[in-house]
């Protein structure tokens, strides 16, 4: 709560800079449009203006400043344009409408959640394997790192096609791409967490004659919970990105990814920006939910005291 005021201040400053930036960013388009509408501008001719300094043009044509905030397809939409679009596509549209961002957000969210669940379960299992088998630890880890250097966007279409060829379509392939991105942070965090009990704690288990599985359930697993949550927060954000990337090669039909893409296909910058913000808001929301669960769980488990 202490952060509200600083955050608002920073946001206000960003908005200020953003508005200021709109003028030079959009001035050339605005001038061209004004010219077409018959106005006279300081330097006539779009071609002549092409290599001129945008700031210089902006200073020379104060009359067109207002226009830079109201273009239909601006290079940089003004904050209020994005806000209005967000409002119209979330609140004012029925959520079942395909023009509603809530509708598209839900499509993406369902793939995200499924992928997140798959990635988390897979990551935890892999981590358990790595912690308990030295062979797995030595062989899997370097390749898990290498796997993260492969651009998903490049292999996403192949994943979709391969699944297509075995008859799996729709949610699952998207979720798999999303799982591919989220499993890694979970593996790394869980391996750390499962190894976090001190040598002393493990020895203590041995003095009680605990079996491997007893040590796992009563010591390793509870000790790993704080690490797990840290990973989950990274993982859920990665899942969301994965789901969006996964939407591109599925025919960009529905979802925030499709929105972004068709927006960019038709040069609808305002639509892109609002989909972008919707995504970030969704991500922030998901992270906040996990952080909330984290706080409650850790408190109940007695951490952080």
């Amino acid at each position, binding site marked *: 709560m202490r952060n509200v005021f600083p955050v608002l201040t920073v946001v206000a400053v960003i908005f200020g800079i953003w508005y200021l930036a709109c003028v030079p960013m959009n001035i050339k388009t605005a001038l061209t449009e004004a010219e077409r509408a018959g106005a006279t501008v300081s330097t006539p001719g779009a071609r002549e203006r092409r290599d001129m300094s945008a700031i210089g043009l902006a200073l020379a044509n104060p009359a067109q400043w207002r226009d830079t905030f109201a273009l239909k397809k601006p290079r940089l939409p003004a904050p209020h344009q994005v806000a209005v679009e967000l409002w119209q596509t979330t609140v004012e549209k029925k959520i079942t409408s395909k023009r509603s961002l809530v509708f598209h957000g839900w499509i993406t969210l369902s793939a995200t959640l499924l992928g997140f669940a798959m990635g988390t379960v897979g990551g935890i299992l892999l981590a358990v394997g790595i912690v308990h088998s030295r062979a797995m630890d030595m062989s899997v880890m370097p390749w898990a790192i290498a796997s993260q250097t492969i651009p998903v966007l490049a292999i996403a279409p192949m994943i979709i096609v391969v699944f297509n060829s075995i008859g799996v379509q729709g949610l699952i392939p998207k979720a798999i791409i999303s799982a591919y991105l989220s499993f890694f942070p979970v593996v790394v965090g869980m391996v750390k967490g499962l190894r976090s009990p001190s040598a002393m*704690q493990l*020895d*203590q*288990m041995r*003095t*009680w004659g605990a079996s491997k599985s007893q040590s796992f359930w009563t*010591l390793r697993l509870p000790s790993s919970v704080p690490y797990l949550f840290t990973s989950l927060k990274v993982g859920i954000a990665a899942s969301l990105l994965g789901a969006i990337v996964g939407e591109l090669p599925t025919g960009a039909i529905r979802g925030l990814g499709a929105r972004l893409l068709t927006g960019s296909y038709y040069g609808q910058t305002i639509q892109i920006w609002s989909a972008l913000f919707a995504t970030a808001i969704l991500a922030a929301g998901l992270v906040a939910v996990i952080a909330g669960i984290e706080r409650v769980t850790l408190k109940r488990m*007695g951490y952080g005291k």
Partner: protein
Amino acid sequence: MTMTDPSPVISAKGLDLTFQTKDSPVQALRDVNLDIGAGDFVSFIGPSGCGKTTFLRTIAALEQPTGGTITVNGMSPEAARKARAYGYVFQAAGLYPWRTIAGNISLPLEIMGFSKAERAERVEKTLALVDLEGFGGKYPWQLSGGMQQRASIARALAFDADILLMDEPFGALDEIVRDHLNEELLKLWARTGKTIGFVTHSIPEAVYLSTHIVVMSPRPGRITDVIKSPLPRERPLDIRDTPEFLEIAHRVREGLRAGHAYD
């Protein structure tokens, strides 16, 4: 040391232990011979790194000796552990923050497969033993350091092993609290008659608590002296100001000084 008891509870003969490290082998124990009788309170004292912890761990079957023999209750340490012959208390309390005090104490019991009813009964009993009645429902962080360490001792007592091994259990506590816990530990020992192996760095602590003080020399760890205490079993705190006490303390200090190369 030679005990009056004919069959010692713990008996080490010619014990050697060498750790294989990357650079070179580290000999932690060399030719250690020691018999501990039933009901003895044996303290181990010696400079840092001399092998006190290693010896205690060998008794508890947490390390494998590389030479010599060691028996606990006449069996191998491994077998003795399976027979739940000892409780082990580490320097830090090491309680699980996600379990209540009662939950912590019942943890080894769960692992050993005690029934629920029996667990509850034993937890109650040991809580009383360490003067923590009524704190079973609290979480570790709600207790002071001294109380936590008492809970940790209770955990090692809960399954009622005959032998209690304690590795610097009070090292992290301040002096006043430590004095108090020393008193409590003595009472507990008197009440239960357990055999106790106790590692410490503090000469007064060793002298105050023990029936026998084992002085060890730096690496490779050997036993340089075993001092049998002439103090009575019943010991008020201010026994520490008596000449007998100071005399033993002096002997221990001399024994320590003998083999000590300052850091």
